[in-house]
């Protein structure tokens, strides 16, 4: 490896090094506070290094890794989400766990795995990144081991993730059998020499889609989502909803773009069915839920269905639409789970919708932040979610996928119901639900709230004045 390889890899090397450093800090028995602050600094440094290394893009480390505008953007987005999760974690874990420190080591490792996914250009690096991410998540999901739901969620995730990894591996093996290579661009070259897609290849692709679909929680691999969102600690849920899905989506997009899978009608049909079903199932299942975490779980299924509407056409604005939608979805979801985290008490997370009754009259700022994020998830104008959905719709219509676009609009209308339900409950003026005030760590509590308020401003800014970000995203290319 040359010096410029190390330079390009510096965000990942920093993440990997940080996990070792934090482990040593734990070994010398520093307090939770010091470990939280130092991991925050390390996340900030690796986030900065993604910006810092942008000058050598595009860059390749053959055959495994590839760095371009898109991958660099996704890497930055993943590290940013982990940074926000890290800020929220202190208040949440300090009162619930006697030893919450190893959590930060695992968070660094999961972030690293997700970033490897975002830059991988080869089945080996894809699988490596996936396993680094998933093995860390097993422990993170079951971190609050005193809670019944937590253990249940951890075991469910372990069994299902291992099972879907097996499908992914077998799919890779079948594709390798047909093409004789595991590099995305070389697979694409082999595929260009044939008119019809070979049967073994499409079987392999289907099996890979099981593994990928599980991670993205798209229909019909969505069954785990609600249980695991509910059982995990709220900051970990935020991480699963954002960082872990973002990396997988990026690698899926890169794979399909490299093999030019969009030229084959069979693949378009499969993906369209998945997209339509995810949009409808996600929104319909969320309607009758009374648990905020479960509502957000089903809404995430629908949102990844929306993303597929921009994904399938693979035209000029697809890349821009996907990047913008991921940005707006990440920020909005982090805000929503941030509020859940801040309202959680020692025994349970703030997941019952009754906990939010008349929240506005007690915590006006938190209620406004959650309102903004719900409106953005629903796609109301003046929020980031609207611009994102508009972009996705434009990409779908430009490709002439009318059915997808119509389903997107219709299912968004269904989705409006449950997002607005949370908002009306917060503003209802009835007897107050008992809210236990957090006085244990006022400093960290204020810092977490401030971070959420800033994110809310970003949501509004992206909704009102998206030009600056759109210009940045328009410059992306995928090599």
């Amino acid at each position, binding site marked *: 490896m040359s010096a410029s390889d190390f330079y390009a890899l510096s965000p990942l090397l920093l993440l990997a090094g940080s996990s*070792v450093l934090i*482990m*040593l800090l*734990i*070994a*010398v*028995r520093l307090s939770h506070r010091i470990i939280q602050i130092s991991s925050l600094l390390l996340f900030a440094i690796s986030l900065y290094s993604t910006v810092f290394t942008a000058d050598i893009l595009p860059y390749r480390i053959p055959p495994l890794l590839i760095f371009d505008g898109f991958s660099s953007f996704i890497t930055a987005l993943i590290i940013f989400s982990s940074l926000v999760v890290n800020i929220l974690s202190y208040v949440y874990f300090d009162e619930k766990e006697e030893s919450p420190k190893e959590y930060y080591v695992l968070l660094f490792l999961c972030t690293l795995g997700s970033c490897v996914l975002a830059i991988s250009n080869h089945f080996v690096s894809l699988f490596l990144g996936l396993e680094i991410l998933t093995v860390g998540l097993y422990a993170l999901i079951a971190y609050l081991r005193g809670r019944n739901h937590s253990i249940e969620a951890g075991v469910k995730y372990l069994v299902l993730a291992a099972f879907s990894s097996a499908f992914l591996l077998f799919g890779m093996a079948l594709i390798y059998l*047909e*093409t004789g290579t595991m590099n995305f661009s070389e697979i694409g070259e*082999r595929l260009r*020499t*044939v*008119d*019809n*897609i*070979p*049967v*073994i290849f499409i*079987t392999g692709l289907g099996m890979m889609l099981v593994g990928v679909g599980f991670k993205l929680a798209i229909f019909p691999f969505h069954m785990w989502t609600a249980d695991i969102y509910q059982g995990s600690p709220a900051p970990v849920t935020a991480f699963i909803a954002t960082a872990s899905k973002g990396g997988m989506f990026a690698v899926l997009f890169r794979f399909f773009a490299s093999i030019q899978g969009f030229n084959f009608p069979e693949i378009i049909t499969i993906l369209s069915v998945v997209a339509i079903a995810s949009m409808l199932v996600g929104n319909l299942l969320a309607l009758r839920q009374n648990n905020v975490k479960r509502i957000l779980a089903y809404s995430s299924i629908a949102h990844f269905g929306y993303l597929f509407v921009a994904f399938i056409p693979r035209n000029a604005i697809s890349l821009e639409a996907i990047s913008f939608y991921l940005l707006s979805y990440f920020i909005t979801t982090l805000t929503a789970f941030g509020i859940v985290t801040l309202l959680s008490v020692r025994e349970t997370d703030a997941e019952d919708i009754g906990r939010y009754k008349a929240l506005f009259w007690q915590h006006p700022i938190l209620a406004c932040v959650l309102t903004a994020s719900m409106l953005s998830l629903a796609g109301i104008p003046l929020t980031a979610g609207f611009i994102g959905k508009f972009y996705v719709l434009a990409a779908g219509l430009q490709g002439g996928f009318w059915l997808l676009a119509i389903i997107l609009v219709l299912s968004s209308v269904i989705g409006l119901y449950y997002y607005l339900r949370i908002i009306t409950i917060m503003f209802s003026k009835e007897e107050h639900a008992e809210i236990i005030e957090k006085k244990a760590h006022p400093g960290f509590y204020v810092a977490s709230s401030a971070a959420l308020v800033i994110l809310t401003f970003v949501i509004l800014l992206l909704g009102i004045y998206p030009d600056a970000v759109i210009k940045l995203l328009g410059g992306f290319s995928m090599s």
Partner: protein
Amino acid sequence: MEAQSTSLNYLPIIFQLLVALGFVVFTMTLTHLIGPKRKTADKLVAFESGIKSIGNARQPFSIKYFLVAILFVLFDVEVIFMYPWAVNFREFGLNGLIEMFIFMGTLLLGFIYIIKKRALDWD
């Protein structure tokens, strides 16, 4: 790579499924049919290593056994990486040596963590 794509190409996959399934069914049926069976009261009693079992196997035991076992696996797997490295030591040259030192160094840091966390203290 074959150009045509017919349903005939699915045949290898179906064969693989059939063989996998057939093997299980075949061996299970065969052993059931040809195995001699002389059932006596002693034989039908559950036993472990030729001795009658005492008590229930599903009882809680100290988590420390598990911890030691998992740490053993961790450092055992590390050695697996050293064998191929040692065989190709000359070809790898100085770079290979440095890479191995980085690998071992990281593991050593993990070892320090384990010691400091008192994972190996039995009491």
